[in-house]
Each structure stands twice: as C-alpha cells, then as structure tokens.
C-alpha cells in the first residue's frame, strides 16, 4: 500500500464515520420547523414596528401559523400582502379597520403662547416634568418631537412646535401613542376625516387664555350633529364608534367658532400655511 492509497482510505473511512454521526444527529436532535413561518416572515414588512402588539414580525408570523392571530393584524401590510398570506395558509384574512394616529392639538407656536424659555433636555417626557412644560397650555403638544423621533415610518412632521400626522404615511402602529407624555395621540379609524384638535379638559375661560383656538365646549357641533359629536368635560369629541362619521362638508356647515374642529386635510394645509408665516 503506497502513501496515496493509505491517505484515500483514511479520509474515506473518517468521512464515512462522520457521515453516520451527522445522520444520527440529524435524526435525533431534529427541531420541528414550520416552513410556513419562514414564508410568512418574508411576506410581512419586517419593520418590526410592534403595531400588531407582538414582539416583531417573526413573532406575529408564528402567532398567525398557530392560529392566534390573523394576517390582518399587521397594520402595515398592504391588502395584497394580507391576501397572499391568507391564501398561503388557506385561512380567513380577518377584517381589520386601518387605523391612523391623530395628534389632538392645534397649539402651534402661533396659537399657544410659549410661557417660558425651556432649555433642558429636548424631549417631551423630560420637559413635561419641569413645571408642566414650556407652553402656556398644560394639556397640549409640547412640540419637542419625541413622537416624530419614535415614528418608524416618518409619518409625523413638526410644524411650528406642533406634531402633525400624515395619514397616508401612518400605519397605525401606535409607537407615538406610548411616547407622548400628554396622551394627546390616539389611534382612530382611517376613514374618519374629521377630528377635534384639542384635548384640554380645562374650563373655556382658561383655555381661551392659553390658546387661540381651543375647543370651548360650546356644543355647536353636538347640536348640529348629535350622532357624530359629543361634549364631555368641556371638550367635544368625534364619536368614532358610531356609524356616522362626520365629513369635511359637515365641518364647513357647522363652522366651529374657534376652528379646532377640522378635517384632516384642512388641518395639514392650515398648519403648513402657518409654518411658513
């Protein structure tokens, strides 16, 4: 036996033994794996925004396969993506109303007085701890863009110290809702085109002192359209769960005296205009 034969034999035998070990290991240490999870992860947006309430896209994929969640629980995925997910698994896509965030304040630098020169940490949660924040209204937007920084989709724009949501970019993940120390941001149905841009429960006289366009709780909107609006604690609210959501035309007809009842597009337009003043 020359050196070449010995080497080939040695390598062959070693390879054979190791092959058997690998085959045994693959058989006994096998982890059951659902290939559907991988496919679903690929279909999900992988933004890991947490809008579905799960720890991330992979977590939602596992939950969908396990039947604990529906594909429509993902607020970010398009309708087509949700349809292909449900056809992949052969399950009901579920119905989920698309939600968007709305910042219920119109207190930009023109409307709300900046009462003090706040020069601490540029973060809303920190500013709220110092004497109730720099603006004169103790309920409104602090204007230090914590929500804009938290938004993974760049849907919040700061216009003159006021956070404004762009509904076409917003996926309704709710990240901004949790960072706002004032609790100003809520998730509303995307079909709602009209909101009350004020969240102060203070008395009308106090609000008037602090802001140029607060909700005074005058009930004008409630009187005109009791199905769509209600006034609680000096503050008008759109009844989002009722069947009749108010339309921008209705807003025109009502003519809110302080113009804090606005349509989404009207609000954006107005704030844009004021930002350039």
């Amino acid at each position, binding site marked *: 036996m020359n050196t070449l034969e010995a080497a080939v034999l040695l390598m062959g035998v070693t390879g054979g033994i190791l092959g058997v070990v690998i085959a045994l290991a693959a058989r006994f240490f096998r982890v059951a794996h659902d290939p559907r999870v991988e496919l679903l992860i690929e279909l999900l947006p992988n933004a890991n925004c947490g809008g579905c309430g799960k720890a991330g896209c992979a977590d939602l994929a596992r939950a969908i396969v396990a039947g604990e969640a529906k594909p429509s629980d993902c607020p970010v995925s398009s309708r087509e993506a949700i349809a292909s997910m449900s056809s992949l698994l052969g399950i009901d896509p579920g119905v989920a109303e698309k939600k968007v965030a709305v910042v219920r304040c119109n207190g930009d630098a023109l409307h709300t007085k900046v009462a003090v020169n706040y020069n601490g940490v540029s973060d809303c949660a920190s500013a709220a701890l110092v*004497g109730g924040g720099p603006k004169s209204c103790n309920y409104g937007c602090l204007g230090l863009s914590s929500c804009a920084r938290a938004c993974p989709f760049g849907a919040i724009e700061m216009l003159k110290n006021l956070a404004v949501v762009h509904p076409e970019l917003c996926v309704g993940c709710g990240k901004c809702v949790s960072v706002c120390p004032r609790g100003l941001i809520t998730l509303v149905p995307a079909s709602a085109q009209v909101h009350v841009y004020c969240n102060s429960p203070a008395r009308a006289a106090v609000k008037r002192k602090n802001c140029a366009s607060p909700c005074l709780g005058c009930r004008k909107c409630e009187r005109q359209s009791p199905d769509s609006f209600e006034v609680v604690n000096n503050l008008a609210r759109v009844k989002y769960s009722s069947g009749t959501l108010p339309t921008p035309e209705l807003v025109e007809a009502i003519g809110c005296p302080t113009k804090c009842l606005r349509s989404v597009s009207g609000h954006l337009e107005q704030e844009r205009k004021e930002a350039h003043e």
Partner: protein
Amino acid sequence: MSDSYKCPVRTFGRGIHPANDGKSLSRELPVRRAPLLENYFVALPQNIGAPPSWVVKVGDEVKKGQLLATPGGKVSSAIHAPTSGKVAEFLETPGPTGAMVSTLKLTADGKDEWTELPPPLDWKTASREELLQRIADCGVIGMGGAAFPTQIKLAPPPNCKIDFLVLNGAECEPYLTADHRLMLEQPERVLTGAAIASKILGNPRTLIGVEDNKRDAIDRLNRFAGEYGVEVLVLEARYPQGSEKQLIYALTGRRVPEGALPAAAGCVVQNVATAAAIADAVCEGKPLIERIVTVSGEALMHPENLLLRIGTPVLEAVRLCGGIREEPGKLLLGGPMMGFAQKNFDGMVWKNTSGILLLPPRLCVQYESTGCLRCGRCMEVCPMNLVPCSLASAAESGKMDLALQNNVLDCLECGACAYACPAHRPLVQHIRRAKAEIRKMKKK
C-alpha cells in the same frame, strides 16, 4: 466667640457646598407677618398621599381655621381656612410641579375671625392617641418639602423600635433662611414641638441638627434645649445635609437600608418648622394655616422672611417685598437646588413652600452641555453613592431597566451631580425622567 465652636462638627461626606449660598440676603432680617390680603388660593392636595376632599361649597362663609377639606384616606391631611371670608369659587390651577390641582378661592372679609378652636392640650399629661389625633386634626404635614402627613410619620410600624428623633434644622438649600429665623426667634416653639413628638414616640433620644453657618441659632437653641431634653448638634454646612438619610448618618452614624424608611434604622426625622406647627396644634389648638417663607433672590427689591398664610399668591408675596429689581431669569418655589421652576407669578404658597426665589438672569446662565468626560466628579459628590453619569446615559438612551439595576430610584434628585459636572450635563433631568418612567411601568 460662640460656645458652639467647642462642639464637634458632623457631616455625611460627599455633597457640595455652593460658593455663593445667598443666605446673607435675608438671614439678618426678622420674620415679618404679612398683612391680610383680599384673596387666598388654597390648593387641594397639600400633602403627599391620598388627596383630601372639600367640605365647603361656593358661597359658604368660613371662619379662620375652619375645616375646608377633610382627609381622604389614612395618608392624607386636613386643610383649614387661612382667614375668615367667603368661598368665592373653585378653580383648576397648575401646582408647583405643573400638575393641575383643584384650588379654592377664598375672599377675605377683613375681620380675620377665628373659628372655635379645640381646647389646648397639656402635652405632658395627654395620651399618645390624643396628641396624634390633634396633630391630624390640625393638618400638620412635613414642612421641609416632602409634605408627608405628620401623624403618620409619628406613628411608625410597631415592629420598629425608635431610638432617635432627629430634628432637621440643617436648611442646607442656598438662599433659604426661614428655618434659621424660626430657630433664632422662636426656639421654645421648636423645642416644645420636639418634646411633644418625642413623647409620642416613647421618649427616644432627641437630636436637633443645625448647620454651622447658623451659629446664632445654635446658641439660642442651646440656651433652652436642656429644659426640653433635646440635644443640639452642629452639622457642617454642606448640601444636601438636610436630606433625611444624610442627616441621620451625620447625627447618629446609622444608615437607612436601601429603599426603606428611616424608621427601619430606628429614626424619625421632623423638620423644625413642622415641630413648631406641632407645638401650635397641641398647645394652642391652632391648625397649620401659616408658615415662614423666605422671599429672596437678587432680582427682588427687598428680600425678606415673611410669615405668609397658606394660599398667599406668589405675586402678592413679591409685592410685599417691594416688587422686582429686574426681570427675573427664573422664579422658583423652594430652594435653588431642588425648588420648582415656575412659568409665571400665578402660583401660591403651599404648606411645604419654604421659599420663593427670584433669580436674576446673570445667575441663570445657560450652558451648552457636552458629552460625558468620564471624570467621575458626579460620583464624588453623590450623597447616595450612585453613579449619576451612567444613570443619565442609560436614561438618555432609553435603557430604563439598566438605570433601575443601578438603583436610580435611590436618587434624591438633590442636583449635586449636575452642580459638579464640568460638562454641564443635565444629569438630574435625565434621572428624573427615568424615575418617572419606571414608576409608570411599575403602576402597570
């Protein structure tokens, strides 16, 4: 030379001593009783704990010292009318911290008539329960700043043996001289209150700690202390000497366990102003409706120590001192280290308001902060032996769990670290945010 120089000077180590303590503005000025004002604004939760509830309504005529709000739970405290007059209205106003509170507007009738006060108690013969009940009825709370109901503090859990009653006369905050003047002018009131508190607690050793920048007050107290069985001890002037845990360590050498109350170390701490209020409540039946407030600062025309009623508007207090000398850069309720910055003069005097400060713009210099230099000066001064720089950076990057692991909740928010930081980092602000968020998470 003062006798007190013979005494040893005690301290806790660490901490800071601000170069300009501002006390010279008002330390020599005797307390002046403020004249009766037209309106008083009494805010609802004067105490920490459960808020009390109003027992009067709009239009009611009240007498001075009449009950306005009754305690709303165990850890809660009564509120009384600062003068006689009419309940004008109830308002929502921002408190010192900016949180909205319910406030009663009382329009004075100018007669300033007392209501029928409970009869004076002879504290030497009265029972412990009677004394505690009287203190609760008179709405006495911790006047040093914490606003904790005194009757609860004087009734520690039965399994804690109290060896020391510590009276806090340190007044370590710069500018404030209210406690100094109280000890100097009315030492017997303070000592009577101390003796009453001591009796309630089963006669532990009673110590009163006073910083060595108040030698005159130490001498005054020493003249009477023997009669009341109180020892006056000298403390080094060092901030935050008046913090409960630091005071206990300096005076008794005991350390309060982490996250525990002083009772766990066998100590109860009371502010000297609280002691005086206890004396008034027990010996005269008077509820807590007024307190000494240092109205000071370089932006104020004539700094003074005023005896103000609870609910005096800040604006009126400033007017009583001759108005402002220059537009203040900052208005603070409390001391410059831990006081609350105010947006405007709309605030009012609370039971725990020890000072109203108007600092001129030149003392409110704004620094640009830079990154942490890792110099460790914040650690050198931290009275709680924490590492403020890493707590702040953990909070800044949102790692609240890391901050919690490093005992962020032990932080007193005394501000010594930020004072010492050469990079002018807003350390306390970051730490306060971390504490607020951790508390919010714990609530959930």
